[in-house]
């Protein structure tokens, strides 16, 4: 994916979160957005997800500009997948229904077909045993994997993740990152805000380092890690390199 962001600004209550942020990257398959907390990472991801509207600037993905009018944004949100830190799932539906509902209610897919797709995803990510459980009966890691399955069930190509493992313990983090690693190897673009530098180093081809509303470094992951002096080996449980 080709990413072109120009002069993106966002502020609330007089506080400037993104300061004329610009970014140009070619051939992105998996992008990690890193940087200190409060630097604007989540805001940038929410703008990409069509959940927030910037005060100025433009975002163009593969030559297609995101239009920030309500109807265009709605269509845009329907076309992509988003996973947040936690509490993504609707607590009153089973895992299976959580995946099926957006397909039937939002995309008008016939229920039989939606069920087939949901079963295929549950099978693939070894979640079949949990299909009838409510989110409250699932571990945090299982909930996130269901949330990711739900997001990719309806999105064609782009999957945005906002610190998907920050609320999880190291074991659950690993099961979620394994799933993301598998998705990254497909023809699918992943953009994730993450503090899992080791994971990003192993899986993401590109990285952005965001601090104080501006991009300080952007480019191939290894270059950004070297330039910022981040430690890809330590500081994280997930350091498997293969």
């Amino acid at each position, binding site marked *: 994916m080709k990413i072109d962001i120009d002069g993106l600004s966002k502020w609330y209550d007089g506080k400037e979160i993104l300061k004329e942020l610009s970014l140009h990257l070619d051939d992105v398959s998996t992008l990690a957005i890193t940087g200190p907390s409060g630097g604007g990472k989540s805001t940038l991801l929410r703008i990409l*997800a*069509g*959940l927030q509207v910037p005060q100025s600037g433009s975002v163009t993905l593969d030559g297609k500009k995101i239009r920030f009018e309500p109807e265009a944004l*709605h269509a845009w*949100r*329907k*076309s992509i997948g*988003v996973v*947040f830190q*936690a*509490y*993504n*799932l*609707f*607590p*009153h539906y089973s895992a299976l229904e959580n995946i099926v*509902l*957006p397909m039937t*209610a*939002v*995309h008008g897919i016939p229920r039989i077909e939606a069920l087939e797709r949901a079963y295929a995803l549950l099978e693939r990510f070894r979640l079949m045993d949990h299909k009838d459980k*409510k989110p*409250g009966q699932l571990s945090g890691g299982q909930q996130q994997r269901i*949330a990711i399955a*739900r*997001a990719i069930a*309806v999105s064609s190509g782009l999957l945005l993740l906002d610190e998907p493992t920050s609320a999880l313990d190291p074991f659950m983090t690993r099961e979620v990152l394994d799933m993301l690693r598998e998705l990254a190897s497909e023809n699918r673009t992943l953009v994730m805000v993450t503090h899992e530098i080791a994971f990003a180093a192993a899986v993401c081809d590109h990285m952005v380092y965001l601090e104080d509303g501006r991009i300080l470094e952007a480019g191939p992951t290894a270059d950004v890690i070297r330039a910022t002096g981040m430690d890809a080996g330590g500081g994280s449980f997930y350091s498997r390199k293969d």
Partner: protein
Amino acid sequence: MQNLVNGLLVGSLIAGFFILTFLTLDYTPRWNLLWIYRDKVLGGFVNTLAISSIALVLSLIIGLLSALSSRSRLVPLVTLGRFYVGLIRSTPLMVQIIILFYVVGTALHITNRYLVGALILALFSGAYVSEIIRGGIESIPASQVESGLSLGFTRFQLYRHVILPQVAKRITPGIAGQLVSLVKDSSLLSIIAVSEVTKVVQEIDSLNYATIETFIQLAGLYLLITLPLSALSKALERRFAYEN
């Protein structure tokens, strides 16, 4: 079983207290009066049930609309909802009944007391239902709304599939309590001569001067409606607790 025993114990203690106080009075109670006028009483009881049922359904609709309007993006709707809830909740029901019946009812040429009575009760109860529903909606975490929007739900779809089903479960006990209040509040319609059960008992009393006996039995008649409602509410609460 233990609950039943406890209930019986407490019930007989309270009944015993009242019987003892009765015995200290130099008074011969006549407990058969409501039975003598049973046709009238039954008619009043049915009217109370009918008015309460209509008012219940209407108050749920009014309450839902009012709660949704308070969450609307249209400022006049928000103001209207707040004004309605504020006005109704801060004035006595009796005042509302008199003004709405004699002024508004007359102006709009609605002369059927039963219809006006049910409408007034619905308006009154709707304000409380509205606050219960609004509280329920606000208890749904913002993260669920964001998740829903990110999946492409419209606001309508979000309310229909995500917010309202959860709100319905959470507010059931509150709504059932409000329903019990509504049944009791219907007794005030007697002031505009609606022949509900309280009005009928007042009439029997005015002919026979037996206020205490007739009103104690009247309380029993209300319990016939409100106790099953309370039991139903508890059963629903338990069921929803298991489901979650």
